[in-house]
């Protein structure tokens, strides 16, 4: 299935989380910390909030969200 990441189109397999899809697409910076540091998934299990991105307009944990056809993801 297809998802949209910033201005790219990605093809992902069913059952893939958004975090995994982003990592596979070579994204290394998921969010910027309060003091401007680059951050990416740490815990992989919904605890650390480092993997927050905007998914279809909502701030969500990408490691806890499965990719769905046509999803739009913004890294900021």
């Amino acid at each position, binding site marked *: 299935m297809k998802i949209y990441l910033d201005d790219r189109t990605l093809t992902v397999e069913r059952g893939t989380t958004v975090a995994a899809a982003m990592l596979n697409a070579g994204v290394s910076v998921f969010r910027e*910390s*309060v003091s401007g540091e680059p951050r990416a*998934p740490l815990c992989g299990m919904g605890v650390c909030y480092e993997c927050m991105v905007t998914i279809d307009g909502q701030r969500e944990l990408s490691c*806890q969200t*499965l990719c769905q056809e046509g999803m739009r993801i913004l890294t900021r």
Partner: protein
Amino acid sequence: MTGFDLIVAGAGPAGIAAACRAAETGAKVLVLDNNPAAGGQIWRNDIPALWAQRLSNVEVRGGCSVIDDSILAHGVPIVLATGARELFLPFPGWTLPGVTGVGGLQALVKSGFEVRGKRVVLAGTGPLLLAVASLLRKRGASVTCIAEQAPRSALLRFATGLWRYPLKIAQGIELGGSLLGVPYFTDCWVEEAYGRDRVERVRLSGFEQDCDLLAIGYGLVPNTELATLLGCTLQDGFVTVDAMQKTWREGVWAAGELTGIGGVERSLVEGEIAGLAAIGELTEARKLFSRRAAWHRFASHLTGAFALRPELRALPRPDTIVCRCEDIRYNDLTRWTSAREAKLQTRCGMGLCQGRICGAANHFLFGWQDTSVRPPASAAPVSDLMES
């Protein structure tokens, strides 16, 4: 939530076992989990066929967090099986992208992250390092080394004690086989990670190593937030239960890593007992006591071997970030004498994760204990708190 005989919070092995055993007696069981699907950390996306089949009579709702004690209002017995998260200890560079938990990397791989061809350094402590190394190798990653902080002597003692657990020996042989050729260092830990926008190189005790990913795991911390909000009693950080896995809070049972760390078999048998006990099948539950006792012995064996060494306390530099949500640094904290004081004065632990990462680190670094949990048990839309 009405119409159920049992609600289970958490769909890892303990929760699945509780739900299945209860459902097999004819009870209507609902399992809630904040992950998209059942499985928990270890069984993420691959629940063993046997359990998957048994789970077919159970209603599982993924992507669903229990945020406060309003769940008790339904008058339905609750089994808490919220599992554990990893213990992270700060060191220079640990906030770089590409540095993850060991279990964290395992979870990411199981949810579709492709690691083929990536150079991975695994560091920390305990058997999880080996299990994850094996998974990574199967997925085509190159595990450049495994750094175990525990001393060799402790590991040998641990290994010679394993004869009492034939299942564990079998797993060990299998792991050993798949890891042949991976450098495994004891008395070794990560001192610093380097990189610009992502980790590129790490310094371990005495040597450096290039890598694409660094996974660190210093053990597990139970997710007791919900249990605390429901009014369960804790001791030494774990939920206190009686022989039937019943907590001190009426109508609430607990199983798995909430009550102690010790592997999947321990969680399973506790889950089975809790599920049966919660719906009143006490005789059946009692039949499992001896199996549980064996796994409890294994668990204490495990904890002894992988105790954290004091040198790890000296890793953060003054400017090393400790609280990642609020970017609070080590030297912001040294003036304060308690978790609450540090929190009120520096915002350490006040962010989105509410101290779930830095709280345990500060316990290790400074001996602080943050006992304060307030709803929601995890960040939630304001509207969730408006539902009565």
